[in-house]
């Protein structure tokens, strides 16, 4: 290679006015990124392009793809993968871990309370109509005892950092969070295409996730010593189908569709080549609405008739439990610090982003007046849908959202526009700062376990704040460093 093309990819990098994960100031690399930065400066853009291409081919060949908009005939895309890993120090991670565990424990106590005594609703801490009116609240699931008292076996919470580097929880995904297969696969691919960079760091492994998940699922089985666990998928047309197949295969369990299961005499069975086989635990990746056409949406072909009734009788465990959507409603989210205080008597370790609940008259007035500075979100949507970013929106969108908030205040919340932190990210032939977030995965069975790593999503378009893969976001490998031995 000639010296001309060895032009380094780093020196021209401008961290900008945001919190940069790698640079404390222009030219000044944060200590835990020092070794990586050294590697990057020895690299030519041709090298990077070659490895980037190798990574992409690897994803293609394995079929690690998602389909956009649930369009079965549409193209299957790979999630764009950025070679430069995101690094989190051991101390930072310890705090994140503790904060997430606290949050998940409190939310499970909250769910148990709401589906049983409803003690918190008799205080004035949270409006009862906000909770009982949540779309995710399932009256049918009241007074059902779930094994170990665990409702959310798998949680994916979205974390962001603001301009001063403070970590915030942006939202909790308590229903069917996805993305963990990318955590494992991104690591595997990065090791394959750029093994050298792993020699400088002691990175905590993430590949134990499927086994940890299986352990959780087995722990919540209703009474069987050797339970049969299955993963229920909506099918190949679901955008996360790759992940469903990946997890089922890694755990060595059957990947089932609704039509593979049936209920008979208050038990769930699957149809197998040797006859029917009893199912004890269903790790479902199907939303509540589609789980059981007898109980919820009658037009659902994805579910299993009679599943809810069987579940209520404690003859099968559904993970995550039915009705957890209540607690990731974005209006309830605003009360999570209150919930932590009420159930655990502790202050929150990871703060919330300031949130205005349109259902509250004072907040609503504030939203309507300041909409151009706010991010407005529909309380039940995810994936970057149903969202308005005020500072970037044309006037007609602002007006449209004002009208929506007025018509359906329970349906909306607003948050200040965050100056999300940025991370050096490969762009054509050099590195540029791009906004990132982080989705760690928290497992809850006998104990809470946070997978050391997570999905760092990156907004690939310059200046964009939207990191969702359905909206043109990409991903990075996320390294959590081993604690230094003391």
């Amino acid at each position: 290679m000639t010296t001309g093309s060895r032009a380094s990819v780093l020196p021209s990098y401008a961290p900008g006015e945001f919190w940069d994960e790698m640079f404390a100031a222009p030219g000044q690399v944060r200590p835990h990124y020092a070794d990586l930065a050294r590697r990057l400066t020895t690299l030519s853009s041709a090298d990077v392009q070659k490895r980037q291409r190798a990574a992409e081919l690897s994803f293609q060949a394995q079929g690690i793809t998602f389909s956009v908009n649930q369009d079965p005939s549409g193209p299957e895309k790979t999630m764009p993968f950025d070679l430069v890993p995101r690094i989190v120090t051991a101390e930072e991670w310890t705090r994140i871990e503790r904060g997430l565990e606290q949050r998940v424990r409190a939310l499970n106590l909250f769910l148990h309370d709401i589906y049983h005594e409803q003690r918190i609703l008799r205080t004035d801490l949270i409006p009862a109509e906000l909770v009982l009116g949540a779309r995710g609240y399932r009256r049918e699931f009241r007074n059902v005892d779930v094994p170990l008292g665990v409702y959310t076996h798998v949680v994916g919470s979205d974390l962001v950092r603001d301009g001063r580097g403070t970590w915030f929880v942006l939202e909790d995904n308590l229903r069917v969070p996805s993305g963990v297969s990318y955590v494992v696969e991104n690591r595997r691919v990065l090791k394959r295409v750029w093994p050298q960079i792993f020699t400088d760091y002691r990175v905590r492994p993430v590949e134990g996730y499927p086994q940890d998940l299986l352990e959780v699922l087995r722990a919540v089985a209703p009474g069987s010593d050797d339970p049969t666990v299955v993963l229920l998928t909506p099918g190949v047309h679901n955008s996360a189908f790759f992940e469903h197949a990946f997890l089922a295969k890694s755990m060595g369990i059957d990947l089932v569709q609704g039509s593979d299961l049936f209920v008979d005499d208050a038990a769930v069975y699957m149809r197998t080549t040797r006859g029917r086989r009893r199912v004890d635990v269903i790790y479902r990746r199907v939303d509540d609405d589609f789980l059981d056409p007898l109980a919820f949406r009658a037009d659902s072909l994805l579910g299993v008739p009679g599943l809810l009734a069987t579940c209520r009788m404690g003859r099968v465990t559904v993970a995550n439990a039915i009705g957890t959507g209540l607690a990731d409603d974005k209006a309830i989210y605003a009360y999570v610090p209150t919930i932590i205080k009420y159930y655990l008597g502790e202050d929150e370790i990871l703060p919330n982003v300031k949130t205005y609940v349109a259902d509250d008259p004072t907040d609503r007035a504030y939203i309507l007046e300041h909409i151009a500075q706010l991010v407005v979100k529909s309380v039940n949507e995810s994936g970057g849908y149903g969202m308005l970013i005020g500072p970037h929106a044309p006037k007609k969108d602002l007006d449209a959202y004002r009208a929506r908030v007025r018509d359906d205040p329970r349906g909306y919340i607003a948050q200040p526009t965050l100056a999300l932190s940025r991370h050096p990210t490969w762009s054509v032939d050099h590195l540029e700062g791009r906004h990132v977030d982080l989705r760690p995965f928290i497992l809850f069975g006998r104990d809470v376990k946070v997978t050391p790593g997570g999905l760092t999503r990156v907004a690939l378009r310059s200046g964009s704040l939207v990191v969702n893969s359905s909206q043109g976001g990409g991903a990075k490998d996320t390294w959590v460093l081993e604690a230094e031995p003391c």
Partner: protein
Amino acid sequence: MLSRVADDLYWVARYVERGIAVSRLVDVTRHLELDAGTEDFWAPLVGAIDLAGDDVRFYLTSDTMNPDSLVSCVRAARTLSRGIREAMSSEMWEELNSLYGSLAAPTVARPRGEAVSFARLVRERLQSFQGLAESTLARDEPWHFLELGKFVERADDVARVLNRQSHLLAAGSQTKDPTGPDVVRWLAVLRSCGSAEAYARYYSLRVEPARLVEFLLLNPIFPQSVRFSLTGACLSLDALAALRSAAGNEPGPAVRTLGRARAQVELTAIDEVFERGLEGFLSNIQELIAQASEELSATYLRDEPVPGRLVGVARATMIMAAQQQQQ
């Protein structure tokens, strides 16, 4: 394993084997064209179609309107595999997926004249898929359903090729000393079953219709013969039936039907085949294979709804309604 998954595996194996058979036909049409000039050999080999030359080859390789074309077979096998990738090894899935990816990419639009080399390339990848199955799968249910699909398809394909030529073969079996054009024709039949070399080694004699039929139909040790394929299919089906019986369920009628087809080719001598009539014999084998495939499906793959199911659902609904009233 899940009935749906077994069903899809069975059909993946059938489409892969069918793709291999189709790609051999492409090869053969080219040989015939070069050796036999203008005479129309395609119709009997390919089925009743009104095409010739490159058009036949396009129809066989790339025509997406032809459900048995090479690209259709690859697409069908890959589409099914995508939903059951957890049931096969990663190597197998990646082989099919990248093959499909290379077909789907618009940059590889193929000039019509290159159908033969294209077919060979695809065949090698499909055979590699079979090889990966052989070396990466444990010999349990998924493996047996793949074997079953492969051998049922192969027996059916070979029987079909022979049947399309059965008049000529039956007539030719009377003549002792076949002439030039006939030899080309018989060689083509062998080639379309990937068997020309093996035949030469086995008999080391001129290609004669009676021996050819004996080889492709009744040979016990050559893997492309109908007998060998039916034996392989029966072995896997027996293994599956044993597992099902051990779980206390009926093994189903497919075991007997497939066994009957196998007995025909095991216990009949070639002279008897011609005495009874080649066409009738082959048609009977093909019918038994089709019937076994149906029965297999009904017993193992579709697992027809259990009679108690709707009752169970109704009962669950009533229990649920009663509980809700109590609250």
